[in-house]
């Protein structure tokens, strides 16, 4: 199916472990984004990418690493998970830099024990 998918949908891990969240889109959109959603904060941008091999920090990048070797994939890695990284993570994509529609994946619920 075309669209934007995330995996896993649910993940439980322990403090200190490395975790990678996957994001895949089939539209060949140039822009991809990672957000975290926490009650009372809305969606906060972690990292974004304007094209393959181009990434930049968002509002809350500490503790996260991204890469984008292929246009369609944008994995997010928590290098050493902390309890404060328990959250719902959303990946999104958009064709251009303007006011086009931004499409969101279904989210990954991450619990760090």
């Amino acid at each position: 199916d075309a669209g934007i998918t995330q995996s896993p949908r649910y993940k439980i891990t322990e403090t200190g472990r490395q975790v990678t969240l996957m994001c895949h889109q089939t539209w060949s959109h140039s822009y991809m984004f990672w957000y975290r959603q926490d009650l009372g904060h809305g969606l906060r941008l972690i990292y974004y990418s304007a094209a393959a091999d181009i990434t930049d920090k968002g509002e809350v990048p500490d503790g996260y690493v991204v890469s984008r070797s292929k246009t369609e994939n944008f994995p997010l890695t928590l290098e050493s998970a902390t309890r404060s990284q328990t959250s719902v993570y959303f990946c999104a994509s958009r064709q251009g830099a303007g006011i086009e529609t931004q499409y969101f994946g279904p989210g990954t619920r991450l619990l760090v024990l």
Partner: protein
Amino acid sequence: TQLLEQSPQFLSIQEGENLTVYCNSSSVFSSLQWYRQEPGEGPVLLVTVVTGGEVKKLKRLTFQFGDARKDSSLHITAAQPGDTGLYLCAGAKPEYGNKLVFGAGTILRVKS
């Protein structure tokens, strides 16, 4: 401090009632978007407003962008249970490279 302040945070109303959700900022935005998010899913774009004073209608939903492009409102007429969800406003500013800044959201519950 949120760059975009949404109010109210929570709203519980009966089917058939009208409601308005507000999105306010002290900053000027080049455009503003409204999303709806249902439990367990990602946000879905409802509308984009670009011009100060612009009004857009989507069936029973009316969106307005303030004249100064600092605020926006979403009005729902005769709310239905299917309108239940989290409503998010998001603003874009050229100096942010058109990255979206989101408000904290308004949780709407429409009871039948």
